[in-house]
């Protein structure tokens, strides 16, 4: 045994010699900050050991002072590249846009409205041309190196982006903003290239984050923005980067000593955790093990099966809902089947509708995520805010809506039917009244009616031979559904479930799984017939931005990269409504009615069969920390990978373990 140990030691020592020769190894755990006064992670660990002797994290911080968060984007190849304006920067959701960088306007996902962050006010038009605006900045904020934040920083950032054509974002930004100037220390005047009624939406956060991130002038003006790594980022958020893994698996953040001068310190209060560690543990199995072992406090986007394992093995794990469906259903991009409407037979709306009616949506829901999905009949995700603004008000119209032959396809009973189906499966904790069932499972969907689908297909020239459909030219009808292979598990599973439903009804449907690059490329060049894509997003009641790309002017031939309208679906009424929306203020009541009309056109034409809002299993472990929001305590959606994460930080409190 001793000999064996000696041998293994020898082997590993040799391994060590090889690896230690690496320059990287010699840089491991080097503190990111150049501030020599700040303690290193090791020093902090020593101090904690001296004080309490409690459990330490593997990066040397006291566990009971460290909140550990999963990194959704995974490992990063160059963890030193923090410049958010170069295309290959560290994914911002590794903690950078959640804790360090800040935006002019953020979003409250629960209320579905933008809120000022670095800005103190919203853009106020200076004349009636909608091209000149001014807005105020928050006073009393300071960069994490102590320098005061002023309008000069915002103006510098704007000028830098416009002047530096090499930055990927430059083209977009220059087409939006003509110039910015500081009227005083805290007031900015903006001139836009074209009339603009939604400037705060374009420069602020509406879903995940924003590309316009204000940078400190006093640091950036000395650098070449195209080459500057910004390795030691200085921001206006409540944390600073303390150290990082040179291999890109983790980033450790520490609360600013002057957190009162950060955006969150000023708007919300003191963050609860001294340290926040964003860490990538690897494949899902390892992430679940980490959570079971209380090594990770916040998990991002796991499968329902993993949640089943986790809740059985970790009694302190918590999901969004206490009972079924557990997952949060308010993610802003709904899933469904997207058609390339320029390719026959999918250029025929009767065919698209037939495929919708051949979809056994209840079974698809069960097969995709065990029924833990909220259904959507329209082109907007069924998140709570939009359910109230669009889904519920449109139920009357949907019930009356008729196909060309007078058939009424809408079925209001989806939610109550799902409750019954799930009850039969022994699921506990289901909604008990219709209203609650609708809030959980959605307002309804379209009937599963293969006979009616058959009528529509026959009208389009299809014929049935045995149990298979033949296309109008007599050839067998084969459909390939493009689906993501290694990401967006819900869309991938949805594709298989829908294919199964279609196969049962005589369509030879197959799923083609594709990696990320190929998947997106196929969509944009029109190299698909049907795809499990998600071209229907939105969080704000004014979802104009999410419809603009559907304008017919953006349709290009298949084979060319589409600048928008990747479904290549031309609809004159939709295009004209989009044109009208462009000139309205968000607060104009006509915005809601116009978007409702657009939704009606999408239902009639069905270029995308909307199916489900996205359910995300984003559990937390309450062993070391409390204060996480849930369905009962929802001050924000649990979008740990979004920039609003910083707003949650003052709510986290240690349990004392």
């Amino acid at each position, binding site marked *: 045994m001793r000999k064996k140990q000696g041998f293994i030691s020898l082997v590993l*020592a040799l391994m060590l010699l090889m690896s230690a020769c690496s320059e990287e190894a010699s840089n491991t*755990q080097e503190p990111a900050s150049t501030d020599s006064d700040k303690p290193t992670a090791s020093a902090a660990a020593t101090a904690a050991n001296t004080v309490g002797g409690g459990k330490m994290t593997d990066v040397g911080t006291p566990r009971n002072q460290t909140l550990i968060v999963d990194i959704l984007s995974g490992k990063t190849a160059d963890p030193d590249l923090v410049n958010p304006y170069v295309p290959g920067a560290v994914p911002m959701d590794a903690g950078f846009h959640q804790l360090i960088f800040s935006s002019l306007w953020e979003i409250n996902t629960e209320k579905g409205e933008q809120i000022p962050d670095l800005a103190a006010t919203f853009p106020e038009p200076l004349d009636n041309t909608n091209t000149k605006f001014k807005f105020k900045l928050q006073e009393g904020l300071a960069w994490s190196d102590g320098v005061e934040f002023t309008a000069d920083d915002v103006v510098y950032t704007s000028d830098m982006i416009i002047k530096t054509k090499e930055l990927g974002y430059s083209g977009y930004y220059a087409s939006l903003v003509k110039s910015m100037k500081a009227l005083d220390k805290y007031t900015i005047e903006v001139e836009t290239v074209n009339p603009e009624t939604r400037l705060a939406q374009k420069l602020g956060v509406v879903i995940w984050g924003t590309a316009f991130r204000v940078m400190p002038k006093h640091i950036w003006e000395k650098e070449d923005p195209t080459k500057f790594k910004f390795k030691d980022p200085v921001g206006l958020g409540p944390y600073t980067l303390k150290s990082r893994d040179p291999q890109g698996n983790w980033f450790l953040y520490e609360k600013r000593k002057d957190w009162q001068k950060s955006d969150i310190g000023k708007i919300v209060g003191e963050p609860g955790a001294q340290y926040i560690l964003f860490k990538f543990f690897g494949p899902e199995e390892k992430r679940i093990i980490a959570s079971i072992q209380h090594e990770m406090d916040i998990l991002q986007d796991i499968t329902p099966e993993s949640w089943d394992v986790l809740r059985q093995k970790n009694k302190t794990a918590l999901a969004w809902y206490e009972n079924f469906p557990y997952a949060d259903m308010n993610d802003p991009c709904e899933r469904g089947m997207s058609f390339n409407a320029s390719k026959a037979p999918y250029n025929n709306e009767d065919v698209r509708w037939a495929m919708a009616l051949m979809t056994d949506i209840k079974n698809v829901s069960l097969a995709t995520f065990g029924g833990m999905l909220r259904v959507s009949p329209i082109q907007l995700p069924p998140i709570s805010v939009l359910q109230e603004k669009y889904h519920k008000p449109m139920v009357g119209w949907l019930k009356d809506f008729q196909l060309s032959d007078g058939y009424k396809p809408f079925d209001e009973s989806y939610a109550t039917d799902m409750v019954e189906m799930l009850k039969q499966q022994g699921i506990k904790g289901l909604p008990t009244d219709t209203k609650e069932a609708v809030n959980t499972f959605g307002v309804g969907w379209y009937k599963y009616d293969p006979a009616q689908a058959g009528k529509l297909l026959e009208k389009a020239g299809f014929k049935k031979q045995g149990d298979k459909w033949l296309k109008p030219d007599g050839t067998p009808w084969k459909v390939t559904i493009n689906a993501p292979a290694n990401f967006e598990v819900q869309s991938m599973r949805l594709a298989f479930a829908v294919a199964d439903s279609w196969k049962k009804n005589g369509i030879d449907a197959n799923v083609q799984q594709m990696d990320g690059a190929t998947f997106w490329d196929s969509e944009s060049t029109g190299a698909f017939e049907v795809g499990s894509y998600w071209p229907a997003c939105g969080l704000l009641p004014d979802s104009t931005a999410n419809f603009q790309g559907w304008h017919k002017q953006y349709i290009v031939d298949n084979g060319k*990269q589409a600048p928008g309208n990747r479904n290549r679906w031309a609809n004159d009424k939709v295009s004209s409504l989009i044109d009208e929306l462009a000139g309205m203020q968000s607060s104009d009541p006509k915005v809601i009615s116009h978007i409702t009309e657009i939704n009606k056109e999408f239902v009639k034409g069905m270029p995308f069969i909307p199916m489900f809002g996205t359910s995300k299993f984003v559990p937390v472990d309450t062993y070391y920390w409390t204060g996480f929001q849930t369905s009962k305590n929802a001050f924000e959606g649990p979008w740990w990978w979004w920039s609003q994460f910083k707003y949650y930080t003052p709510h986290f409190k240690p349990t004392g373990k």
Partner: protein
Amino acid sequence: MGFYKFLLSRAITFVLVVFIGITTVFFVPRFLPSDPVEAMIGRMTSKSAFMEPGAVESMRKTLNESFGLQGTIVQQYFGFIKRVVFTHDFGPSLANYPTPVNELIGRALPWTMGLLLISTLISWLIGNAIGLLSGFRKEKAYSKVLEAISIALYPIPYYIFALILIMLFAYIIPIFPLSANFMGKGFSWEHIKSLLVNSALPALSIILVGTGWWVISMKTLSSGIAEEDYVHFARLKGLKERKIMTKYVLPNAALPQVTMLALQLGSIFNGALITEYLFGYPGIGTLIFGAILQSDYNLIMGTITISIIAVAGATFIIDFLYPFLDPRVRYK
């Protein structure tokens, strides 16, 4: 003169293989149904606010210029060959722009070398030793047991082994960390300890499975050689079994094993993709995995070119050394 002619022909083969290899590596990613610029735009637009289609077009143009993807494919090819041959520069990584590919490879290579070189050598040494014993003394009980273990280990894919090790030693008996985290600096004890602890499981997954393969192949070779006339003659002369095994059987059985070892050492530049991914090990395998997923042409070309040169180089060296190792092929 014959030797120099032999060497020249092998050198020409080496250059041709490398040239054809890197040419293939240049063109193949470009025939894939994916585009790095589109992938990046898709990633950006799927997460951030809506961008006007005109602005997306403008971003596309900028990225194409930045990534050096403008011009015809022929122009791009000659530019690539010129850069690789004369400046050994693979350009910037497209997915990690503007970080140079050379920098990313430079960071990852020592880790892969450290893990795979040592694991491969260890499994080669252990496997050949066991294979020699079980082939030469096949009637012994221990030979049969060792052979049985090897046959059981060999067919298990190394990534399954890796998962089993993770479950066993990071979950059920949590004595090793779930994910690699290399602490400390240089030759400090903290760093040494961290390297030992974090490399143990990935190394073990490679060594155990690799050893099985070497045992089986060495056993086959040595048992055949043990039946040769000159081995019988040596026994009749009264030489000790140990001497027969080490001086008569081993040198002859080792030749093909040395060849295979050299080829395997050449291929370590590919990294142990799945092992590295599963254990969060920062090597070339992880880099290639990410590069392929993101259509990072330059990084794919950089990593695979190095691998091609390494395998072709290993073959060239073996060809060069073989005449010295085996008199039968000398000057043929």
